[in-house]
């Protein structure tokens, strides 16, 4: 059993999700009696492998979930994959996978190109680090779900405006439900992103005050992109709230949620390929003296 679990790799669950996505896409082409079961089976197998993989890393690596960029992305993908499975079982005729599984696979891809080295931690900063990571994770998941709901709202509204009856294998939730989800997730994303940002400032301050670990300068790209994301999400949530009593409020909220997802994606890409002092080990005094701006 131990040998089996230790042999699970990222490719195992990514491949399962990819097959589930292909099954979802085939809804557009033909009807099948076994596709639903196959889709759920592959997604569930992927989720089980994903869970075992994260569990193995939490118990056998010097890391727990959220303690490295790699683990953070995989945990975000795991939450979304679980959400996909739940939504698919509850609403088998709604093609949520067409929208959620690419995000899940994108996050797994981001994990593959990000660092597996654990963020430096000390007992004094561990709790703040966990809070910071958890809030950022919740904000990202909320943005992704909000974008899904917003996208489905726009598709459903377009279909209803063109007076088209629903397709048999492509049932969409009601506008009422989608609008509610979009507005709610925008608000959750704004609050959690702000909480994640401010807990990061506190974490940085604790590090600086106690001289425990390397601190992140205020003009670090990670700080700037997170600040930008928070400002955008708070603005978007406020705009959605203000326009919620207008007849075109749900449409505005849907577009805001899609733009929020674009901003989040840009922020993640910037984080993946930009230079930063966020989450890097502390600089040794001698090295720091030689080159204070060195980036490992």
């Amino acid at each position, binding site marked *: 059993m131990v040998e089996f679990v230790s042999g699970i790799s990222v490719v195992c669950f990514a491949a399962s999700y990819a097959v589930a996505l292909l099954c979802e896409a085939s809804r557009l082409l033909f009807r099948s009696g076994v596709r639903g079961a196959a889709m759920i089976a592959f997604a569930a197998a992927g989720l089980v492998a994903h869970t075992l993989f994260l569990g193995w890393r939490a118990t056998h690596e010097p890391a727990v979930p959220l303690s490295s960029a790699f683990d953070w992305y995989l945990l975000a993908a795991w939450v979304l994959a679980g959400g996909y499975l739940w939504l698919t079982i509850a609403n088998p005729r709604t093609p949520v996978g067409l929208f959620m599984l690419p995000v899940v696979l994108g996050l797994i891809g981001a994990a593959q190109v990000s660092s597996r080295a654990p963020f430096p931690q000390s007992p004094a900063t561990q709790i703040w680090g966990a809070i910071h990571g958890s809030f950022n994770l919740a904000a990202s998941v909320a943005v992704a779900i909000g974008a899904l709901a917003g996208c489905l709202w726009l598709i459903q509204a377009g279909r*209803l*405006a063109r*007076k088209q*009856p629903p397709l*048999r294998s492509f049932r969409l939730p*009601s506008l*009422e439900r989608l609008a509610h989800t979009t507005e709610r997730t925008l608000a959750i994303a704004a609050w959690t992103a702000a909480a994640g940002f401010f807990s990061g400032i506190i974490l940085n301050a604790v590090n600086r005050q106690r001289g425990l670990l390397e601190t992140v300068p205020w003009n670090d790209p990670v700080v700037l992109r997170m600040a930008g994301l928070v400002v955008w999400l708070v603005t978007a949530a406020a705009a959605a709230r203000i326009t919620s009593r*207008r*007849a*075109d409020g749900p449409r505005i909220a849907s577009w805001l949620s899609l733009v929020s997802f674009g901003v989040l994606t840009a922020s993640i890409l910037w984080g993946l390929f930009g230079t930063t002092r966020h989450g890097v080990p502390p600089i040794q005094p001698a090295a720091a003296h030689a080159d204070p701006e060195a980036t490992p």
Partner: protein
Amino acid sequence: MTLAFVGGTHRTVPLALRERLAFSAEQAAEALVRFRERFPGQEGVLLSTCNRVEFYAAGERSDVPPPPPDQLLSFLAECRGIDADLLTPVLAGDRDEAVVRHLFSVAAGLDSMVLGEPQIVAQVKQAWSLAQESRTAGPLTGEMFQAALRTAKRVTTETAIGRERLSIPSVAVADFASGVFERFDDKRILLIGAGKMAGETLRYLRAAGARDIVVVNRTAGRADELAGRLGARAGRFEDLAAELSAADLVVSTTGATEPVVSPELFGQAESRRGGRPLVVLDLAVPRDFDPRIGQRPGVWLYSVDDLAAACDANRKSRQRELPAALTIIDEETQRFMGDLHHRSTAPVIERLRAGWSETGEAELDRLFRRLPTLDDAARAEIRQAFDRYAAKLLHPPLASLRSESRAGSPHGLLDALKRLFDLKD
């Protein structure tokens, strides 16, 4: 011949004649009793709906075949007091496999006015129950009707022929209003006018959970009467703008010749709606709502033409499923007929086995008398060897018989077996 049928549908029988030919439940029961007396030992099932009258007869014994279609036609004419000559050109008759295929198609809704409609299954079940109560049902019609219901279920589950909605009220509620609203129990429904589709649309809305219904009509008394009948509240026509501002879904079915709700009137209501979406099902011809209202944000306006177009699309979608449904009908008919033909060979097989067994027993007795020293174990071994030998010799002809049954009644083989093995009826 073991199965016979005669019947007519909306396609062949004019409405006036169909009305005369139709049987109420009591009349159908009486007709079945009369059939039992007229054709003793025969099985009969009468299926009478608003679109069809059909009589299915069966007789399993080859010496007592069921009454042929022309006799069944005369019987139906006599039961309903109609001149048989009037029915001859409009009723069709069939025998054996065609009867099975027809019943399977009927039960699956493929022969209905609305392709794939599900109510016919319940009507087929009722017809069978009535035949059971009237003691005209038998093993053959029993198997045929059970197989028909099984076939209907297969068609429903394996094709999408009955899934798309075809009536305007059902499409309006299930495909469009439900696309906007998640639930209806917290929505205000406003019914303007009392057109013929109002009641059916409200029935669908009630089934979806709608409770808060307001009826307005130009004639206050008519609104009160309709509200009382529908379990709704009557509103004043003069307060239409206020009612529109409070409504979430409007069903409009007035007989007005000009739009009842103009953009100006709607504008008064819109400012007080607080951005809530509004679904308008304008089922009136001419339209009650000015089409420009449908361009306002948050308003989902559907006219009869919009809904009829959706119904047509659904109808075409059902037509596309027809070949798959017919394949199922074909498979099930072949399976049923194969079983039926194979069952008709049972008496011959039985006699063949009995003849061989009799001969074998006689030979064994003779052998055991010649060898009295054999103990019980040895005798049992020899008996088993005889049985195995007989089974192996019988296997090829019986397998050929089974195989031949799948293609049709194996009369040739049965006659050959009877002659070869001297089997007497």
